């Protein structure tokens, strides 16, 4: 199980590192006169000192990526599920933070170089809008474009209704996929309301920059909707195959990530090409609004969402109170990630406590408790081998299985057992069936005898 879990975590977590490293490394190519989050005059972008900082930054990103990859090797030899999970979550946090720290260091270095050499001259500390572009902005396509996707996502529910089978499963899938498509319909026009790109005084370039970004992101949301609709249909057809479901979910996740990354990369490539082509007389310098080159803070801008300078998609204007709250919450969640692992270690290594008397038995593990009065028991079985289990909800680890499980031969049971124990006690009452284990076989047999005696 640990090997399979390691493989799943490897597939889910490891891609985070190369994706972040590649996106950040791409920042050394000037886009809208911005290099590593610093706006530079066009003629200074090829300066040897700028090039040296860019090369050092790329090298540092590469070295840290290699180091973090090697850091994963010991993870494969860790003993238990909870320690493995904690190690993976800590590594994931490092894979996110380390490349960003490398970026911030290079950004500050380049900014210091800009200040020392007084490479200013752009329009700074002002809100700049291109009137010609603003007057020519295209409207988003009609919402009706999403309707076929929504209809396709409803098909599993319609089929389930017609054949009168697995309605709940179909309804759950339709609800989940339909919600994603509805979210796309809501987000799609938001990208068209964002501030238009202004790199310099050339209206046509500004229009092309804005158009390229909006076209790519508009296409992205439409594609994501249709991908979700197909996913809804595919997952319905493979519903009885565990591997089929795993395959379809993996393919859907990979395709969605690929669409988002390629969208951002295409938009940035277009920006790079467009701004490299022309010699402008005036350029816009918004560096003062970007803290550490990552966080946008402009009290004079009423926009809540703003195109990211670095990364994929949009970021929030930290001058807005709600943006501050959401950012602090996001950072808290990110930094608390390893705590999930610590909690799992606590779960896995805290032993069960069994309190048994001649009248009742109570098995407790942290906040979970099973308490059975012998008088309520209709039938009890002592098992010397663990029957097949399938978790419905609760915890399933090497040292503890607790919660609601489907147990072979007994149906749905409330269980609190150590899967490594030698004996298991099944107790059937009018309302529920329970399965417990105790630290020793003798204790379990003793409880069984007390039950039989009554």
């Amino acid at each position, binding site marked *: 199980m640990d090997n399979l879990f390691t493989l799943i975590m490897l597939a889910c977590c490891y891609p985070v590192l190369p994706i972040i490293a590649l996106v950040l490394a791409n920042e050394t190519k000037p886009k809208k006169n911005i290099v590593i989050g610093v706006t530079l005059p066009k003629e200074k972008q090829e300066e040897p000192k700028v090039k040296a900082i860019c090369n050092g930054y790329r090298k540092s990103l590469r070295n840290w990526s290699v180091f973090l990859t090697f850091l994963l090797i010991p993870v494969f030899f860790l003993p238990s599920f909870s320690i493995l999970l904690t190690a993976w979550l800590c590594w994931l946090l490092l894979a996110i933070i380390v490349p960003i720290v490398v970026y911030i260091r290079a950004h500050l270095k380049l900014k210091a170089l800009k200040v020392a050499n007084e490479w200013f001259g752009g*329009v700074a*500390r*002002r*809100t*700049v*809008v*291109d*009137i*010609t572009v*603003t*007057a*020519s*902005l295209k409207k988003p396509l009609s919402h009706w474009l999403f309707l076929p996707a929504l209809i396709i996502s409803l098909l599993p529910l319609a089929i389930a209704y017609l054949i009168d089978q697995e309605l709940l499963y179909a309804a759950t899938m339709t609800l989940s996929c339909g919600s994603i498509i509805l979210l796309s319909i809501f987000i799609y026009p938001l990208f068209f*309301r964002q*501030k*238009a790109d*202004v790199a310099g*005084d050339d*209206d046509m370039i500004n229009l092309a920059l804005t158009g390229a970004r909006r076209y790519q992101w508009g296409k992205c949301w439409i594609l994501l909707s249709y991908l979700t609709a197909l996913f809804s249909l595919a997952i319905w057809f493979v519903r009885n195959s565990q591997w089929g479901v795993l395959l379809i979910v993996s393919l859907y996740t990979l395709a969605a990530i690929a669409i988002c990354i390629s969208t951002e990369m295409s938009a940035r490539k277009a920006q790079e090409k467009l701004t490299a082509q022309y010699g402008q007389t*005036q350029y*816009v310098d918004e560096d003062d609004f970007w803290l550490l080159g990552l966080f946008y803070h*402009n009290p*004079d*801008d*009423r*926009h809540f969402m703003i195109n990211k300078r670095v990364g994929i998609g949009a970021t929030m204007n930290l001058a807005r109170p709600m943006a501050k709250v959401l950012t602090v919450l996001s950072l808290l969640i990110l930094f608390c990630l390893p705590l999930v692992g610590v909690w799992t270690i606590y779960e896995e290594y805290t032993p069960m406590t069994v309190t048994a008397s001649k009248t009742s038995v109570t098995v407790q593990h942290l906040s979970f408790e099973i308490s059975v009065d012998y008088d309520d028991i209709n039938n009890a079985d002592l098992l010397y081998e663990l029957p097949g289990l399938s978790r419905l909800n609760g915890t399933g680890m090497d040292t503890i299985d607790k919660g609601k499980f489907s147990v072979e031969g007994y149906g749905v049971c409330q269980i609190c057992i150590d899967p490594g124990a030698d004996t298991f006690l099944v107790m059937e009452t009018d309302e529920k069936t329970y399965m417990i284990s105790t630290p020793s076989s003798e204790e379990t047999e003793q409880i069984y005898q007390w039950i039989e005696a009554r």
Partner: protein
Amino acid sequence: MLLQLDFHSEAPIYLQIRDQIVMAIAETRLKAGERLPSIRTLAAQSGINVMTVNKAYALLKREGYITVDRRHGAAVAADGENRGLSEKSLAQLRLIAAEARLTGMTEEGFLSLCINGFRQGGRRNG
């Protein structure tokens, strides 16, 4: 045409919009008949209040620099109309002339400055 709004300037935002559009028309960066963004779009794009843009457009319309049509939106007014300077602008010009005289500038020097400034503003009407 780039609109640059300085929120820390003493000049009100609506006046900054008005002045920059007038300068852009004079310098032919905005041409006669060219469409301007709607009030709502410009407000949304520049992150300012709709009423501020409305005030700037109303002033520009009153002064004859733009036309506002319910169906086609705002556009730069056609050439050829000799509107003359407003009383306010004439008063400003008189004040600048007085300041120039007090600095000891000659009439020819002042006229030369005026001509340069006029020419920098483009040759919209010829």
